[in-house]
């Protein structure tokens, strides 16, 4: 059955505390951090971007399993911060894992769910027999305007899944999507920062779609929340996924292992996939994982996943790449001035 044959995540080393950002804007950092359920966020080094993060995540996935690069027939990278407006991120990822030239590739954009859209496309190609394996990446160096609410969470990181048919470590039992035209968050061409509808991003946007897709999945599979070991929801902050989980009837114990946002921030296209990676880091054979992503604009992709024996077999070596908690633990806290330099907010002469 089609499934995840390997996975890998990457998070840059640098962090800024939410309180430090609040200090610059004269806001109450303790209150904001508590309200958001986010205390630190990751930021890229000055020589890191969505391409380097995607490559590192894809290489981590390659390190965990002996995948012949020639078997990789497709590479898709979902992001809203592709370094080039025109020139694909996916080709660099393909070349850096040795999968070029016999492969197809494209970049995806669907706000924060572009990564899971890449997973769905990969599944389709694998299931149809068009390719043996496909690499699906969700990664971002997320943008948020200085002083805007987004700045407190917009973070850098990503994850890659290798999708294939042979001996998956986790089978993807089903995927379904819930999509409408909802203008809750956008970034216009040539604009450095996105804009959003404030509280409009909540109920008619995030919750409507996440709940819509999740309910469709439960109905289709004939399952109830308690049938799952873990649940991962798109995590723009700590509050939304917790609320969505409780609305659906998932417990805190089910979502906590996949709630990476608390000390990572919102990695946009990377967010639910990094959360899934954190769950795969600890999952045992037989564990069932529920995942629903969300991308503004808007849509949600829901996945029903069952971990197989292969995860503990010789075919797979989880220790060959760092876990999400390893990546989160290896950190260096910086102040706002260094953060501004890293994020290119300091204007330099060309």
């Amino acid at each position, binding site marked *: 059955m089609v499934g995840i044959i390997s996975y890998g995540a990457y998070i840059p080393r640098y962090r800024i505390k939410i309180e430090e950002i609040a200090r610059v804007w004269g806001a109450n950092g303790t209150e904001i951090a508590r309200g958001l359920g986010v205390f630190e966020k990751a930021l890229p*080094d*000055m*020589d*890191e*971007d969505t*391409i*380097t993060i995607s*490559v*590192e995540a894809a*290489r981590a996935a390659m390190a965990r399993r002996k995948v012949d690069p020639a078997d990789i027939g497709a590479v898709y990278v979902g992001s809203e911060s592709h*370094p*080039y407006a025109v020139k694909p991120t996916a080709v*660099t990822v393909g*070349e*850096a894992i*040795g999968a070029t030239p016999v492969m197809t590739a494209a970049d995806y954009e669907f706000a924060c769910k572009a990564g899971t859209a890449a997973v769905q496309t990969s599944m389709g190609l694998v299931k149809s027999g068009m390719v043996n394996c496909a690499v699906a990446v969700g990664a971002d160096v997320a943008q948020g305007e200085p002083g805007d609410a987004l700045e407190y969470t917009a973070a850098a990181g990503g994850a890659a899944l290798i999708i294939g048919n042979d001996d998956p470590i986790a089978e993807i039992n089903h995927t379904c999507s819930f999509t409408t035209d909802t203008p809750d968050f956008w970034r216009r061409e040539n604009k450095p920062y996105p804009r959003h509808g404030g509280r409009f991003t909540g109920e008619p946007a995030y919750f409507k779609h996440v709940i819509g897709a999740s309910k469709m999945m439960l109905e289709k599979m004939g399952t109830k929340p308690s049938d799952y070991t873990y649940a991962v929801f798109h995590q723009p902050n700590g509050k939304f996924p917790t609320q969505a989980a409780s609305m659906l009837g998932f417990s805190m114990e089910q979502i906590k292992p996949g709630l990476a946002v608390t000390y990572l921030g919102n990695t946009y296209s990377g967010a639910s996939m990094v959360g899934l990676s954190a769950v795969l880091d600890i999952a045992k054979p037989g564990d069932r994982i529920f995942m629903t992503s969300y991308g503004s604009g808007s849509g949600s992709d829901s996945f029903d996943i069952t971990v197989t024996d292969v995860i503990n077999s010789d075919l797979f070596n989880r220790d060959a790449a760092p876990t999400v908690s390893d990546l989160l633990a290896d950190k*260096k806290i910086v102040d706002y001035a260094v953060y501004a*330099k890293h994020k290119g907010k*300091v204007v*330099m002469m*060309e």
Partner: protein
Amino acid sequence: MSVARFWRKQQNRYNLIGNQCTVCGKYFYPPRGFCPVCRRDGKIVEHQFKGTGKVVTFSIIRSSSGNFKLLTPYVLAIIELDEGSRLTTHLVCDIDKVYIGMPVKRVFRKLGEEGSSGAIFYGTKFVPA
């Protein structure tokens, strides 16, 4: 660096692809098309390096130009790869942490760009292992 000039060695830079002379066994990265030991008797083949090694020597650059200006101060190092070849790299680590003999591993990073509208160059740098 022009796009063609960079692209020509892109595979080498992305994946640490160098050479080995199968006659004397010596490894070469940066790549060489001609063995300096065996010369005309040598036989050069491609070799992908594992990407691990150790610091031979280093400096902390406090004054730089171009693409490295924003990264300053940064660690510049000569690395000896496990296979025996040596290369020069920006070693991405805290400037007070580097030492001779420090084990390092490869990492994929931006090497530079031709201004904000130009091509971006990627390749291999090193971090502490």
